[in-house]
């Protein structure tokens, strides 16, 4: 069995090499059959990788400890579901997942994105093949998930924090995002290599980019949710390098999604767009490198592994190659269109781009700072929350405001008078909200008030956009309010889907502001019968209970929560003691207040031998808005992604109409 898997990986590797070599030759010399053959090789590589993946999954399902990977990441008592998701619990399996997703995306993209044009696809194939070859090379020669050994009696077990539904889903979602960014990258390189100056590659990859970006966003939110409920320190984001590793490419991809709109509407920023997609892809590779190489002192980092130098080398090759190609094609990318006014939607998008890229780069700087400072001064220095928060506020708050300003500004040039009129209501709403908040005591956090008022401004401008659009559509006649609304959204799916995504970001901002700027934290040692108060909630400790489960012992502190005279329920924060893994995990207890959107977060910090508990309680206002934002985000992205028959017809006429005529 392991031989089958290893042979499949070698087959995949050979196919990908063929795709690179044969595909490049075919594209260069213009050989149709060879180009098709190279394209088929990508599809076949997907098939071969699936075979290898099935071999590993089967071994995981049967707890076949003769596979070293299975022995390292599962144990006899591990339930089937978690045994399967242990696939991506370790380094080698994660690399296989990367390759699997990459081959899947590659096959699907080249088969369906025909609109990009045959000669572009001819170059896209070797580009995708090159990235795939790198991962296949690692899997075959450096870090194989299918290595065998003498089977031990039992495996080491899966880390308890990973035995959680969120962690089961989080890596694949993230990978669908990370790896998905390879598609627009490959098409951009393909277009440059084929010397194309038109927008076909953007139109062809639009949905792929949006989907990858959405997966990356949702994957991160799931990761944050996991950290919140499973690790349970009371927060959801720690600015750890591994978390930043996913945030940076997401920010770059967000910038890219916006700037391609400018290229489509006005034909500007061609060079900037290509550089952005290269940046997003390189950050995505860098992110994978960060998570796997242990090179940055991270509490998340895996062992100092052998694949680090390989990744670094590959990133350098890709960056150098891409930049050289851009430089060589610079004359082709010049556009005639100029930015007409600093007050226009194009300009707003440009500011948004600059802020997003600046934020991504400052996070990058913070992540590599230990390495750089060690190289320069001999001592590694780290930056932490204050650094990241400073830049998050400096760049993030203006970005938040821009989300509200952008949609209200016209293309090309907006007169200040027109602006004044369109801004009136959102501005008024924001001012009123600010006054109310200050009166309610929110002034304790300046940043919080600013974030809230900006959020109100943006929400008001979004609502206004929908309202004005619906009213204009209705004025055209023939439909009522409902019909006008659905017709409006249906005809402009990307725009209105985008507004809904903006609304999701605003909800996220409100949730983050509330749960960080306005949270209350209390800690106290409680003996049975003692109580403590946090934000109006009285917590009474009743004692411990201990339970024996399948693979662990559960110790829980029983805490009764009261508000005034109302009994709100009994909550059980505590610890789990896992036998096989010999580890203790923190199990928090959270009370969700659905009315206010806040959480009462209880942590049994320390279980003491004398029967007392060191209880830490946090009251986090509005934190559930973060998770709500996730749903709204998905909804908006789906609307934006939804195929539009009318637009498809128009694009077909534009691009395929050419082939028919020629």
């Amino acid at each position, binding site marked *: 069995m392991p031989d089958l898997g290893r042979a499949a990986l070698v087959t995949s590797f050979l196919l990908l090499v063929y795709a690179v070599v044969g595909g490049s030759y075919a594209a260069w010399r213009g050989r149709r059959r060879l180009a098709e053959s190279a394209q088929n090789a990508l599809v076949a590589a997907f098939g071969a990788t699936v075979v290898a993946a099935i071999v590993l999954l089967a071994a995981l399902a049967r707890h076949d400890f003769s596979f070293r990977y299975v022995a390292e990441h599962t144990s006899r008592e591990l339930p089937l579901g978690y045994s399967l998701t242990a696939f991506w*619990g*370790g380094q080698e399996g994660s690399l296989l997942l990367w390759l699997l997703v990459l081959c899947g995306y590659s096959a699907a993209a080249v088969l369906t994105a025909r609109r990009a044009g045959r000669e572009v696809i001819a170059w896209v194939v070797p580009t995708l093949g090159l990235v795939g070859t790198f991962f296949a090379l690692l899997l075959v020669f450096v870090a194989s998930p299918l290595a065998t050994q003498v089977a031990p009696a039992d495996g*080491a077990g899966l*880390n308890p*924090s*990973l035995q959680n539904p969120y962690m089961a889903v989080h890596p694949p979602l993230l990978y669908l995002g990370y790896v998905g960014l390879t598609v627009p990258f490959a098409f951009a390189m393909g277009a440059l290599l084929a010397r194309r100056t038109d927008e076909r590659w953007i139109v062809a990859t639009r949905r792929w980019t949006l989907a990858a970006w959405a997966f990356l966003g949702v994957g991160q939110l799931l990761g944050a949710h996991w*950290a919140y409920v499973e*690790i349970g*320190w009371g*927060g959801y984001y*720690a600015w*750890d390098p*591994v978390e930043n590793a996913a945030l940076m490419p997401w920010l770059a991809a967000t910038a890219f999604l916006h700037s391609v709109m400018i290229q489509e509407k006005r034909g*500007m*920023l061609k060079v900037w767009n290509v550089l952005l997609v290269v940046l997003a892809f390189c950050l995505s590779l860098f992110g994978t490198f960060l998570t796997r190489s242990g090179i940055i*002192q991270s*509490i*998340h*980092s*895996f*062992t100092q592994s052998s694949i680090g130098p390989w990744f670094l080398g590959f990133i350098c090759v890709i960056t150098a190659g891409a930049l050289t190609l851009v430089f060589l094609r610079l004359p082709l990318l010049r556009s005639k269109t*100029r*930015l*007409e006014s*600093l007050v226009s939607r194009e*300009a707003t998008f*440009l*500011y948004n781009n*600059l802020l997003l890229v*600046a934020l991504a780069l*400052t996070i990058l*700087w913070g992540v590599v*700072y*230990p390495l750089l*400072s060690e190289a320069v001064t001999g*001592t*590694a*220095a*780290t*930056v*932490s929350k*204050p*650094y990241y928060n*400073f*830049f998050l506020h*400096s760049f993030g708050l203006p970005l938040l405001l821009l989300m509200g300003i952008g949609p209200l500004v016209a293309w090309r040039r907006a007169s200040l008078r027109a602006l004044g009129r369109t801004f009136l209501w959102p501005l008024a709403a924001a001012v009123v909200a600010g006054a109310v908040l200050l009166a309610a005591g929110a002034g304790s956090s300046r940043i919080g008030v600013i974030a809230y008022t900006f959020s109100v401004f943006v929400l008001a401008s979004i609502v206004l956009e929908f309202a004005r659009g619906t009213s204009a559509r209705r004025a055209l006649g023939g439909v009522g309010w409902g019909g006008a609304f659905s017709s409006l959204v249906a005809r402009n799916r990307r725009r209105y889907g985008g507004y809904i995504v903006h609304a999701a970001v605003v909800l996220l901002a409100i949730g983050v502001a509330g749960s960080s700027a306005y949270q209350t934290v209390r*800690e106290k*040692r409680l003996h049975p019968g003692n109580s403590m108060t946090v934000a109006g909630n009285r917590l009474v400790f009743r004692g411990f209970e201990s339970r024996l489960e399948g693979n662990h012992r559960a110790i829980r502190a029983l805490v009764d929560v009261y508000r005034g005279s109302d009994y709100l329920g009994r909550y059980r924060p505590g*610890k789990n003691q896992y036998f096989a893994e010999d*580890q*203790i*995990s*923190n199990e928090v207890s959270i009370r969700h207040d659905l009315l206010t959107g806040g959480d009462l977060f209880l*942590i049994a*910090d*320390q279980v*003491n031998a004398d029967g007392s508990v*060191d209880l*830490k309680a946090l009251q986090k206002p509005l934190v559930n808005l973060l998770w709500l934002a996730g749903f709204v985000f998905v909804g908006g992205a789906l609307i934006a992604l939804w195929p539009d028959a009318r637009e498809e017809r128009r694009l077909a006429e534009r691009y395929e109409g050419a082939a028919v005529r020629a």
Partner: protein
Amino acid sequence: MARRGSPARLIVALSVAAVLAVFLVYTSLAGGTPSIQPGQLAGHTGKVSLVGKVVGKPSGDAHAGGLHFRLSDRNGAASVPVVYKGSVPDLFKTGREVVVDGTLRGGVFVAVPNTLVTKCPSKYTPKK
């Protein structure tokens, strides 16, 4: 009226300059925290991030009076006593590699509360 030349380039240049300025202001004021091992503590008087291995038996109570333990270099050469108050990660035990912020005072490393973080040596475990 359309401008001669592109204001886009001007915006980009000004923005880059602005970012750099904000940046330099921040890093010169706040800077990073040196990340060092116990053997290197001698020269540092300010706040540092101490990385080391827990040796010996920890004593005391982090939630009352302070947890006392010793941290040594990775190779086991030098070690320093640490006193810590606050949340203790579940993975904390003798032999684990940990990171904690604090300052050396009178031969004892006094930790900043709630900054103790453990690193799992061979398995993926994020812990706060």
